[in-house]
């Protein structure tokens, strides 16, 4: 518990700053996943699906 600068009643500026900070952290949560290397099985599955389309093409309508 710190004594400093406790934002007692919410003033507009403080509220805006808080919202901005939440926004930054929200993007950080998302970006942490988005910036992970894509697991190999994703691209492997996509290639397999593409190969299957080349062979049979049962899924795609003309």
């Amino acid at each position, binding site marked *: *518990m*710190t004594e*400093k*600068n*406790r*934002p007692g009643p919410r003033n507009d500026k403080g*509220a805006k*700053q*808080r*919202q901005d*900070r*939440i*926004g*930054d*952290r*929200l*993007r*950080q*949560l*998302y*970006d*942490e*996943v*988005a*910036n*992970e290397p*894509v*697991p190999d*099985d*994703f*691209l492997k*599955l*996509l290639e397999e*699906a*593409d190969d299957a*389309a080349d062979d049979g093409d049962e*899924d*795609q*309508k*003309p």
Partner: protein
Amino acid sequence: MSDAIDDKAFKAELASLIPHLRAFARSLCGDATLADDLAQDAMLKAWKARASYKPGTNMKAWAFTILRNLFYSEKRRSWRRQPLDPEVAEATLVANDNPSGTMELLALRNAINELPDDQREALILVGAGGLAYEDVADICGCAVGTIKSRVSRARKAVTEILDSNEIGFSSDGSLQGEDVFDDLMDQVSALSKPAKAV
């Protein structure tokens, strides 16, 4: 081949969206493994549905719609009712070299988890996914004004949750939302320096 973009171009663009599919799925599911299952299913479904994609439209929004429909139609929403595992959550965040930043993220994740589904997805898509309100309205099948309202309520709710709740994940269970925000404010200047970014 008709007027659709060819398969090769479609596949390349879809592959480029995989990180976003994973991130959106993670925000819906909470659990990383289940989220990747969902993201893979969505990717494959998008591939199969490629003939219905309209070239020139936002493929990210289109693919997110597929992912979201999968999530809700298969009742995977129950997945996120599982309590978050603090150790898992911690482990996913240790890469962050800022301990108090890690705590803030855990607190925020916890707060987001308490939101109603409709508010959570609107907040994630607009606030983190980089989508326009119009795209999010399409994804969620509702009016733009509804999305704006949900985002607004979600922001307010998250702020209140962070203010009122103890942060259950942390080793210091007494830490309050306001303390987190004191830390947050302390870091504003640090984070705004370009060198510290990334």
